[in-house]
């Protein structure tokens, strides 16, 4: 294998180790769902760097087998929050899309005894998502810069070998 090839492969391995193993989805739109008093469903939208999208469109869908039925639409406020009323037990999905086409969706299941329960968070998301809120993706930045530096080293070796 050439020296340039070694550098490129090394860069890719390092990228996976440094940043790829836990990508910092800084610009991903994320959605959290909470059930509140009276069966109200509170939807919180945010980017993982803490920003909240205003005016994002949210759709509440009822899932019945393979059929999806739209129940309601809402827009997020300045805090990235919108609320729905969940009318009955069953499976639901909330889909969100902001003005730049960032999308997020979550599913939830409402059991018969939960349809009008008290406040409870819906645990339908990866546990890492909530803790990422407000974080900066420094691991991704360092990993990316390292890959670029290694690619530049490979380019330099390639240029030297051609002469």
């Amino acid at each position, binding site marked *: 294998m050439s020296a340039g090839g070694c550098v490129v492969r090394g860069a890719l391995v390092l990228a996976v180790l440094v*940043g790829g193993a836990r990508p910092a989805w800084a*610009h991903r739109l994320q959605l959290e769902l909470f059930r509140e008093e009276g069966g109200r469903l509170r939807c919180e939208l945010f980017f993982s760097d803490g920003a909240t999208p*205003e005016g994002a469109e949210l759709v509440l869908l009822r899932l019945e087998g393979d059929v999806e039925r739209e129940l309601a639409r809402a827009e997020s406020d300045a805090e990235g929050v919108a609320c729905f009323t969940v009318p009955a037990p069953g499976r639901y999905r909330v889909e969100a899309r902001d*003005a730049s086409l960032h999308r997020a969706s979550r599913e939830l299941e409402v059991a018969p005894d939960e349809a009008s329960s008290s406040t409870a968070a819906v645990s339908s998301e990866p546990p890492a998502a909530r803790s990422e809120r407000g974080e900066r993706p420094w691991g991704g930045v360092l990993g990316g810069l390292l890959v670029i530096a290694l690619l530049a080293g490979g380019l*330099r070796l390639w*240029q030297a070998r051609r002469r």
Partner: protein
Amino acid sequence: MHILDGHLPVLSLGVGFAVSGGLLAATLPSLDRVSPPRVATVSSAFFVASLLRLPFAGTSLHLSLVGLTGVVLGRAAFPAVVVGLVLQWLMFGHGGLTTLGVNAATMGIGALVAALAFHGRLPGGPRETPRVPRHPVARGALAGFLGTACSLSLYAAALLTAGEGLRSVAWACVVVHAPVLVIETVLGASVVGFLLRARPELLAGAPRRFGQGDPPPLQEDAAAAAAPQESGA
């Protein structure tokens, strides 16, 4: 200004990969004539700029720096943009895997347009004479504006291929990105003004070869020096 997975039809995605693949093949040879630290520095700036977020009109915008990338790297801007986009997708989740071709085409072409606007040519070819063009600051602003406007137009055009459903979204995206256009224009002028004082050779489109020393002296007035240089080339 990244298009995410799941919005565009397969045909658009294929065209994006074909166009960006062709441009990548055409511009890769220019990497042989550019200083690796320079291309790494500009790629890093392009990669990190996507984290400079601007909350605006209910969404999250970020800078692209396609104008400056084109001004400093010329033809080599395209491969640099592709590397930056791959890393932005891998590390930050900007864009997507299937839309990598479309995103590379929209931003890479924007960078090449910016290089054309600034230099009046596409620096990076063989046997070129480096020179700083006339009115570099104004040209820097023009490059920032045209590069970003071109990227935005291609971005909207790509979204329009998704059909009626995204038509309004495409136009809304262009309007929402207007502040980015303004900032990139101002940034183009100010960074070019700074480089003109600090490192003017970066603005000369110099095809500096590794191991061959510094590029030839710069000439502020290209018109005055054009005749003897071009006959020499």
